[in-house]
């Protein structure tokens, strides 16, 4: 992107098309690709932050080899990380992975590219707002990155930015808040666009219960973003006021910081921040998960060659999940001195919300029964998603019950739990999506061998990173420790931490086949012969490849549900949604030359 900015003054000499076409495009597909590439870069960046943290965790106090000295005397004197820098890396890893990595890829990238295609729309309902939403994200991302260069560094109070710690943190926290306001605005604009598009622009015949599950997932996700993000925006404004205008929304009276009384009026409430934050951040967990479930459902239906089992039940579960996600937030706060009545309420809602998740996972698993499973690369990732997400979900149980949370709260067990949900869970689903839709976007298939190599290595090392965390947490080691070996219970599990660190670095190596595959396949691989190389049924495969601006050559019409595979009496084992009853079945063709 940066190089393109430098070229700005040449703009008038170019064909007027270029800027409109690739940079300030209003085409949902270009915007989807912009979102995807940006968020893939941010994912890699966020991952790199974590790899540096893993060095300090595994070998506390030792200089980071080779690159340690590049980060300056303030951050890494003699190549050894200081705690402030460690905390910056931690806070920014979380922020970047959630708000600039996974959500923009899952919603901004896949949602933008695929949703209008799957509902047969020529574009999103508001193409310009769509463009604005990407550029808000871009600015938010730049602000976040730039904050590393501020005096005192980037935000360092965790991605949760709990007050009062965040109130007294260096100026990087202010940048974080401003960046967040941009990211929130981006999400709000995006979610409005998704909802209107889904409701208004479905083609003829595409009723709500004929929508692909992916569209449903995006639709519910958009409502979560729309209604859960504003309270965080409010909280962000309040914290900004606290930091910039000297108010005390989150500061009670009588605080003494490093021996000096804090010069504020007081009268605020630090728990208010947590409530407003988790009012967003719990639904946000489902924002991370639901699109992933959508992708997995698409890939599984396509590669089992049969309809999804219990499609309607899955949709109802999805909606129920969305609803419930608004009334579980305080289970993040069981240890803040909560009384029994309130904790009972939130434990109960937490147990209830696990039910629809179980139903969706069960439905996906039952879909395998009686299938004819094609073990394609996307299918590998989609299948692995199920047990990985299951581990993530199951480990949520002891955290959702106050009595077991007494021991596990704020330990590595929590880190292991939610990383199982989002890393081998959501990120695997996102990989499945990349391998699955790559031929639609580029017109070329990705390499199967490299893809499988990428899958197996990632699966092994993902577990190598996160499985030890569950044990470290069980041993009672607190999260966000710069060096756990000072504690006896931390030293006892240091070997597991070293194992996790090496797994993380090897996980990075495991991404090399993916990066090579991704870049090579864009140019070198042979083109797909058919517009529908996976022999899928949903509408995105009914467009030319790659789809032109405006998508469909003629507006399609939908005649049946989204997953009509292996319908008895038809010669082909897939029956696309847009083919009229009397039309000839498409002949199965090899995917590539």
């Amino acid at each position, binding site marked *: 992107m940066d190089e393109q900015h430098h070229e700005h003054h040449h703009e008038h000499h170019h064909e007027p098309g270029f800027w409109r076409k690739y940079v300030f495009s209003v085409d949902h597909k270009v915007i989807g690709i912009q979102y995807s590439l940006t968020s893939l870069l941010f994912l890699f960046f966020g991952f790199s932050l974590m790899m540096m943290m893993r060095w300090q965790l595994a070998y506390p106090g030792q200089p980071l080899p080779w690159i340690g000295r590049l980060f300056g005397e303030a951050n890494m004197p003699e190549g050894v990380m200081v705690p402030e820098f460690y905390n910056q890396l931690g806070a920014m890893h979380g922020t970047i992975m959630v708000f600039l990595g996974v959500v923009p890829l899952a919603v901004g990238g896949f949602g933008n590219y695929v949703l209008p295609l799957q509902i047969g729309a020529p574009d999103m309902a508001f193409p310009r707002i769509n463009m604005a939403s990407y550029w808000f994200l871009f600015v938010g991302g730049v602000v976040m990155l730039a904050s590393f260069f501020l005096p005192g560094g980037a935000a360092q109070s965790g991605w949760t930015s709990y007050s009062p710690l965040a109130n007294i943190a260096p100026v990087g926290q202010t940048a974080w808040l401003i960046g967040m306001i941009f990211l929130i605005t981006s999400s709000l604009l995006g979610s409005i666009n998704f909802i209107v598009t889904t409701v208004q622009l479905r083609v003829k015949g595409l009723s709500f219960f004929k929508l692909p599950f992916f569209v449903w997932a995006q639709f519910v996700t958009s409502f979560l973003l729309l209604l859960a993000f504003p309270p965080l925006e409010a909280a962000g404004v309040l914290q900004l006021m606290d930091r910039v205008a000297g108010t005390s929304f989150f500061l009670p009276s009588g605080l003494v910081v490093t021996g000096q009384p804090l010069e504020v009026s007081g009268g605020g*409430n630090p728990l208010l921040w947590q409530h407003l934050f988790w009012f967003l951040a719990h639904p946000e967990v489902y924002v991370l998960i639901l699109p992933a479930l959508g992708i997995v459902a698409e890939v599984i239906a396509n590669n089992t060659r049969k309809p999804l089992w219990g499609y309607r039940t899955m949709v109802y579960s999805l909606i129920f999940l969305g609803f419930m996600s608004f009334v579980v937030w305080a289970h993040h706060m069981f240890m803040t001195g909560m009384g029994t009545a309130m904790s009972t309420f939130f434990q109960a809602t937490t147990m209830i919300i696990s039910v629809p998740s179980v139903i969706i996972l069960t439905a996906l698993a039952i879909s395998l029964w009686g299938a004819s499973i094609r073990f394609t690369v996307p299918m590998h990732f989609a299948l692995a998603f199920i047990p990985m997400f299951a581990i993530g979900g199951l480990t949520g149980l002891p955290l959702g019950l106050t009595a077991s949370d007494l021991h596990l709260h704020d330990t590595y067990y929590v880190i292991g739990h939610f990383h199982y949900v989002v890393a081998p869970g959501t990120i695997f689903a996102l990989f499945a999506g990349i391998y699955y839709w790559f031929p639609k976007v580029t017109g070329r298939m990705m390499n199967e061998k490299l893809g499988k190599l990428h899958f197996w290595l990632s699966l092994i090392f993902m577990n190598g990173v996160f499985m030890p965390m569950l044990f470290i947490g069980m041993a009672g080691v607190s999260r966000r420790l710069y060096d756990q070996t000072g504690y006896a219970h931390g030293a006892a599990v240091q070997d597991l931490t070293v194992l996790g660190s090496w797994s993380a670095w090897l996980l990075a190596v495991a991404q090399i086949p993916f990066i090579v595959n991704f870049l090579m396949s864009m140019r070198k691989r042979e083109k797909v012969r058919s517009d529908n190389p996976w022999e899928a049924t949903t509408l995105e495969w009914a467009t030319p490849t790659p789809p032109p*601006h405006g998508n469909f050559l003629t507006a399609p019409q939908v005649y049946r549900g989204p997953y009509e595979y292996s319908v008895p009496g038809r010669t082909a084992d897939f029956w696309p949604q847009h083919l009229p009853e009397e039309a000839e079945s498409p002949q199965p063709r090899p995917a590539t030359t």
Partner: protein
Amino acid sequence: MSAEVEIPYAVKPHPVTGLFNGKFGIWLFLASEVMLFGALFSTYVLLRVGAEVWPHGYSLLNVPLATLNTFVLILSSVTMVMAWASLKMDDFRKFRLNLGATVLLAFVFLIVKAFEYGAKFEHHIHPATNTFYAIYFTLTGLHGLHVIGGILVNLYLLLPGSAMWRTEPERFTNRIECAGLYWHFVDLVWIFLFPVLYLL
């Protein structure tokens, strides 16, 4: 790719939902705004309930000025809806008058607000003074930003944007309707802010 793609129901209402895209979009936006101000109101309640003493708004703030501002904003809402109605009745001149009045009234609101703020600052009263003023300045400030946003939108629609009336009158009327919905919401927020901050 430079050619604009025609989006269905950008102007005409959808046969099932009965809405054109923009109107649905603006309502969703307002829904998110409800949650934004809701969170702030909730904050207000929480801080007030938790405080040992909480001043009465009327003993610290200028109620007559705020009452005046309430009238001004309500009036601007009426002119806004009249602007839309004028377009519906094909009376562009009356539309201009009404929308112009809306913008003017919005400016009056801001000027009165500026006097209120100025008086406070003169007495060295700032958001940092206490929690009451913190919430007062934050809520009215955020509301003021919404007023400024409304002025910008309405000014655009009044001046350069109104050229659309000649080419696509229906689309232009839709735009005014959406701008109106937003403006009424800004009014509605004030209707709650006024008693909560000034009268209680």
